[in-house]
């Protein structure tokens, strides 16, 4: 087994990986940019090395610097987390050349799955259902329009090198295709340095359902069930759960879906942990979307229903161990959900909200799991992803998970910066969400903090707020007076108050 692992990442996922290493008795090496010297992932590691300036291009994306630290510190393996270099085949290859084990799939699998058109080809050849589309990137807008006319609108334009919703455009009618083509190309070029765009038939009101797979380096495969990730904003997942409310009632669909995922992973020549993403329409027809060749943000929900530590399995597989689970040896139990807590202000259009976390109180008690990269007193830097914590809940049933999350959200306090906690409080009250009737458009169409009708808290709660404010004001005035050595001013207990309210459901 490895004695030392370098974690080529930051934030909650670096902390998450370090936790498992620590439990396995493996020494951990953190790397950090200038903006992250005081970050939690540095503090919980055994060793820590600076790798450059704040922008990721100067630090977390610098392959040579990271490998240099790995060599100097004696790392035997590197865990890439998600994002940054995790799906960069050149990094995987550079690790191999440097004699350091990359904890992830072979570079070849990353490379072929990274080119979306190539991945589609492989899957179609292997008999995995794919959405009808151009076989590879369209030459120009005319070829895209020709395909759209043949298949019928709406269609989806997608960056071939894409991911995370960048370089993606829905086109509803012929008149919009030229503009959308230019936008998709422009975004793709900016995000991936590659403006190749291909066309797919658009699945209406699709659900995003994915399957977690594990494969060892000896060619054994197992799936760990599906995850429903349809709740998205700007193509970014925001809440995930397992089992999928749609799939749950259809054992036959689940069987076919999970078999297709294993087939896809085999076709990709996969090893280690990976996720096969599918689009699913209302009739439960599913189509291969892409394969994520790394650990997913939302992996904890699978851990909660299976009891399996996915990071531990990743490390064991990378160390050459055989899979520890037979295909029918995994027990699934209950339901789990994850809320991604972002440093974003839902009342201001989800604007980023970096800054100092003045107060942090985490929820606790039965069925709650928190993975955070934040600590009280720490300043969330503005250079990176705004994900500061993941709140997960497990319970025997979906309804109980929702009740538990609702309870946990009342306990969860982040002071000093805006977060999406309040957004989740509202989301959990949404009848469509509660019924499991969700698709990837739910948050954009029927629901947003801006458009949803929000109510002020009831009168008594408002009064409580006022009283606390008066008290605080009185206290601060007293303190200020004392500091200045003046006599305490006469404070009128019946001070007048002005109140403006926004956001939040009524109790």
């Amino acid at each position: 087994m490895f004695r030392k692992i370098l974690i080529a990442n930051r934030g909650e996922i670096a902390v998450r990986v370090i936790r498992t290493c620590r439990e396995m008795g493996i020494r951990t090496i953190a790397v950090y940019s200038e903006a992250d010297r005081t970050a939690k992932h540095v503090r919980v590691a055994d060793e820590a090395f600076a790798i450059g300036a704040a922008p990721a291009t100067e630090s977390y994306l610098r392959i040579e610097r990271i490998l240099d630290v790995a060599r100097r510190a004696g790392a035997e393996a590197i865990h890439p987390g998600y994002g940054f270099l995790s799906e960069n085949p050149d990094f995987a290859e550079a690790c191999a050349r440097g004699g350091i084990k990359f904890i992830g799939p072979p570079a070849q699998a990353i490379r072929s799955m990274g080119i979306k058109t190539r991945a589609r080809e492989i899957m179609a050849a292997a008999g995995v259902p794919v959405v009808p589309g151009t076989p590879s990137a369209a030459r120009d807008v005319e070829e895209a329009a020709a395909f759209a006319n043949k298949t019928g609108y709406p269609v989806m334009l997608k960056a071939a090198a894409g991911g995370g919703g960048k370089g993606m455009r829905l086109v509803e009618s012929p008149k919009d295709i030229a503009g959308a083509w230019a936008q998709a190309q422009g975004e793709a070029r900016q995000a991936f340095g590659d403006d190749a765009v291909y066309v797919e038939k658009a699945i209406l009101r699709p659900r995003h359902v994915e399957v977690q797979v594990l494969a060892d380096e000896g060619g054994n495969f197992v799936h760990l069930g599906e995850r429903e990730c349809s709740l998205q904003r700007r193509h970014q997942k925001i809440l995930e759960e397992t089992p999928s409310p749609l799939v749950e009632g259809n054992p036959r669909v689940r069987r076919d879906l999970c078999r297709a995922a294993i087939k896809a992973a085999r076709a990709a020549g996969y090893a280690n942990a990976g996720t096969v993403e599918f689009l699913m329409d209302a009739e439960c027809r599913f189509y291969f979307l892409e394969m994520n060749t790394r650990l997913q943000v939302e992996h904890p929900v699978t851990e909660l229903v299976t009891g399996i530590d996915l990071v531990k399995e990743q490390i064991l597989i990378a160390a050459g161990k055989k899979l520890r689970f037979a295909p029918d040896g995994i027990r699934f139990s209950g339901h789990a959900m994850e809320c991604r807590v972002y440093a974003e202000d839902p009342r201001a259009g989800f604007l980023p909200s970096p800054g100092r976390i003045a107060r942090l109180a985490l929820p606790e008690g039965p069925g709650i799991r928190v993975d955070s990269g934040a600590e009280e007193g720490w300043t969330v830097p503005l250079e990176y992803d705004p994900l500061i914590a993941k709140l997960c809940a497990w319970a025997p049933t979906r309804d109980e998970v929702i009740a538990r999350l609702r309870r946990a959200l009342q306990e969860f306090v982040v002071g000093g910066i805006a977060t999406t906690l309040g957004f989740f409080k509202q989301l959990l009250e949404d009848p469509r969400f509660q019924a499991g009737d969700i698709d990837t458009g739910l948050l954009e169409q029927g629901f947003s903090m801006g458009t949803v009708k929000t109510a002020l808290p009831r009168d008594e709660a408002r009064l409580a707020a006022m009283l606390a404010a008066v008290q605080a004001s009185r206290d601060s005035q007293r303190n200020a007076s004392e500091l200045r050595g003046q006599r305490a001013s006469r404070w009128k207990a019946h001070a007048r108050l002005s109140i403006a309210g926004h956001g939040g459901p009524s109790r």
Partner: protein
Amino acid sequence: MKTDVADLGAGNYSVILDGNQYTVHLSPTGDAEYEVAVDGCVLAIKVLDPRSLAQRRPGSADSGTHEVRAPMPGKVVAVHVSVGDNVGREQGLVVVEAMKMQNELRSPKQGRVAAVRAKPGDSVTAGETLVVVD
């Protein structure tokens, strides 16, 4: 009504009103001004001291000039207007990036650009004025 306020420290208060308990989180946003969270809702509250009331000047809210400020700290990646440009309501003026997200700041009204105080590449803090629209 029986009221009881207890200071829990760090801006937290427990308020009991006739037995009903509320936990209130206060963040000061100015002199005697607070952002107050209660019941999962956020209220903006200003405590008006009778003395300070006397000193307040009549409001000058509607002067016609609007300052477009950075809503968050970040980096300016694009400036779409110059001084003297006529702009429409909701027209994009400046793009600021933070945490891998780009945000376009729009004009709050129809008018003329009176000042541009940012250029691409600038780092800005929250609340910094980037464009003034007359």
